[in-house]
């Protein structure tokens, strides 16, 4: 089958070639908003407590943020596809238990085994979502309670100590003396996935699925595969985050990461990714996760009393989203 040869239909020139789709200054600014929000927040915390802006303190903050970055990065993919993954935190908790249980047998391979296992569990949720046509919200809400139950049962509802710390020791090292290894790993995850999206057709498939699933499907994009892949990655990221948590806490516990769900979703939204899908990126979630981490640890450390801390957290996070969301990309906000 050869390319159909079409005569050039002459009449009018296609378009004025000088008109380029170049972003305006305003658009450029909006795309940097997550970073701006981060800097503003850091400045505000420094004003409140000048001691906050020290190398030590920043190092601790990025080290703290690593699991959240990884969780948010994985879930961002699902959100970009137009879904949501509410199971990441419960899956991460379950993975910490797996890690503690498997480490004695698998040794150095445990990390890989965990990531593979959580990836497979994520894939399973993805398959349930696309095959049964159940909204991802429901599938992953169900997944959340199922994973919690499994974790409680296999751990006998208690934390399991990890005696052998060598397997996770590498995550506690520092690159060049200051950059925590776990944060470097988180950066690598963001970078690798971002590159995969940018350099392969995956990126446009993901966005097409998120913007308009039916158009993507009828346009021949592998919508179901893309969705399952997104859930798989989200699961795998939950596993990696679990390894990071274990390296920090020296134990696995069936509820360890449960409270990271809402911060992870907050990180995605604060980054300016549209919760309705299509528009957004992983580096935005990275910036968002740093903002959320600063809010979580920064406010109490600079001395905001507990009650006011919650009020401030609520207000700042809403303000941050108001700042970062590019409204030209999302017409109707639900």
């Amino acid at each position, binding site marked *: *089958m*050869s*390319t*159909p*040869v*079409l*005569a*050039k*239909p*002459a*009449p*009018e*020139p*296609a*378009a*004025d070639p000088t*008109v*380029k*789709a170049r972003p*305006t200054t305003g658009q450029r600014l909006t795309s940097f908003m997550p970073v701006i929000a981060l800097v503003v927040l850091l400045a505000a915390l420094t004003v409140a407590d000048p001691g906050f802006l020290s190398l030590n303190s920043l190092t601790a903050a990025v080290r703290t943020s690593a699991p959240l970055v990884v969780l948010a990065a994985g879930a961002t993919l699902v959100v970009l596809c137009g879904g949501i993954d509410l199971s990441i935190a419960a899956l991460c908790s379950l993975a910490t238990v797996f890690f503690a249980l498997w480490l004695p047998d698998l040794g150095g391979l445990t990390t890989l085994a965990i990531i593979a296992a959580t990836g497979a569990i994520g894939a399973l949720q993805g398959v349930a979502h696309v095959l049964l046509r159940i909204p991802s919200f429901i599938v992953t809400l169900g997944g959340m309670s199922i994973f919690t139950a499994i974790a409680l049962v296999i751990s006998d509802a208690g934390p399991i100590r990890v005696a052998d710390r060598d397997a996770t020791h590498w995550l506690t090292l520092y690159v060049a003396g200051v950059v925590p290894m776990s944060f470097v790993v988180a950066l690598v995850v963001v970078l690798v996935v971002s590159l995969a999206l*940018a*350099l*392969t*057709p995956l*990126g*446009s*498939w993901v*966005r*097409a699925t998120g*913007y*308009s699933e*039916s*158009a*993507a*499907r*009828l*346009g*021949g*994009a*592998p919508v*179901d*595969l893309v969705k399952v892949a997104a859930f798989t990655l989200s699961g795998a990221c939950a596993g990696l985050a679990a390894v990071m948590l274990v390296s920090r806490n020296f134990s696995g516990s069936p509820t360890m990461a449960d409270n990271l769900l809402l911060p992870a979703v907050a990180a995605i939204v604060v980054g300016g990714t549209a919760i309705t899908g*299509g*528009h957004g990126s992983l580096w935005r979630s990275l910036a968002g996760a740093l903002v959320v981490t600063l809010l979580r640890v920064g406010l109490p450390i600079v001395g905001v009393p507990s009650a006011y801390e919650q009020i401030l957290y609520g207000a700042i996070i809403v303000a941050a989203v108001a700042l970062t969301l590019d409204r030209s*990309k999302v017409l109707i906000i639900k």
Partner: protein
Amino acid sequence: MTTDLQTEPGPRAPGSPPALEVRGLVKHYPGVKALDGVDLVVRQHEVLGLAGENGAGKSTLLKALVGLVRPDAGEIWVRGERVRLRSVVDAADHGLGMVFQEQSLVPNLTAAENIVLGSEGPGVRRGIYRWGTMRRLAQEQLDKIGSHIDPLARTDSLSFADRQMVEIAKVLRIEERTAHPPVIILDEPTSVLESKEIDTLFTQVRRLREFASVVFVSHRLDEVLDVCDRVAVLRGGKSVGEVLAADAAPAELHRMMIGATGSEDHYHDGAAERSGEPRRPRLVVRGLTGKTFRDVDLDVHAGEIVGIVGVHGSGREDVCRALFGAEATVAGEVVLDGRKLDLSGTRAACAAGVGYVPAERKTEGMVGPMSVADNMTLTKQHARCSGPLVRPGKQATLVDTWIERLSIRTPHRGTAIQRLSGGNQQKVVLARWLVAGDVRLLLLDHPTRGLDVGARSEVYRLMRELANSGVATVLLADSLEEAIGMSDRIVVMSDGRATKEVAAPAGAKPTPLDLVKEMV
């Protein structure tokens, strides 16, 4: 009806006083001048046609008239009074109402609610619905246009044509807001209707003229001349003149629209250029059965265009979707080029060389916020990749080639497709299947819906050239004439079954009447 008829019925375009005047209207969009000083007069009790190519600015102008678009410059006068229209409500208060190009009803509300939406009046007292009153109000509007639907039916349970009637009934509510004859604007109301429904609509439009002015937009120029008293022509956001419908021909209008002598490139004569090489069967469908169709047999040869005609609900659309793997089938066998076609999903169909252009361009055909380039290369990876990696350079070259070949009007290949006019969007969607050069079977569902004459003839030419290069095409045409003109063979479907096959070779075309007999 609240308006009293001061004047006798009948066309009276030139003489009657202006109901609405537009002077020097200008509207810029980033990179486009959608309106560039438009002047327009709409007289009382006339039907004014508005013609222009895709992207000429028709919709923008009409939206400005109902307060949805804020013009950058220019004036709008209603019955001798200059007005500033800030919202739909504002416009309705001045007696201006519009039926939009895309249907705009809330699907999960009743027809009655849709009709009174936004101006419930006595239907809602202190925020409380009075369903009886509501029903009566809606019934009054429906009676005006002689529609018999149940006002309390959920809108998404109504047929397409009935929904169109609801839209018209809804827009007629503006009569209640003003003592003067209203101006009713219809933006491409016919592009989604069957011919029978179009006839009903035209009857309505002629009735409207008795108590209102109507602005009517359509790309079917014969239609425009048929129903309108006067036709104004827009080109590149400027008014370029007007004609009296009574003494104008489609060709003349077309010339004004494109600003040159347009080739009278109509589907009827084009068929002669078709190459006569011997044909081999490409698509063989036997006993295909799905939810809305049964036992469909269909053969399409390489290089052949087969039209499927049928009334709304005949199931032809679902047959097309089934062949593309987008609709489930329960039985039947489909063979493409001697190999069994996998109907399990759209991916498999794409891989086998099947292409599909859906009728619902906005929701199914394109991914609005994505660029022209990404939309064009969504399917065929080797059009933008080497190995698994995207090569932006390769993609750009290829996309630019096709933008030029199909003369797609877009500021840039990176422009979001939703900012293009409908015709140009359609060309991008078609190009999606051509970029790779491996399409063997093309399923076209209303491919010319909403396209202007020029764009349409380009699509026709494209279809023919594709056929000449060996592509087998299944066409669900916009009108019977189009089906007859373009097809080599026509299959009639009714009630989910293929009931008749009619040969339509160049020079021996059946008449529309022949087909209508079979369809009902």
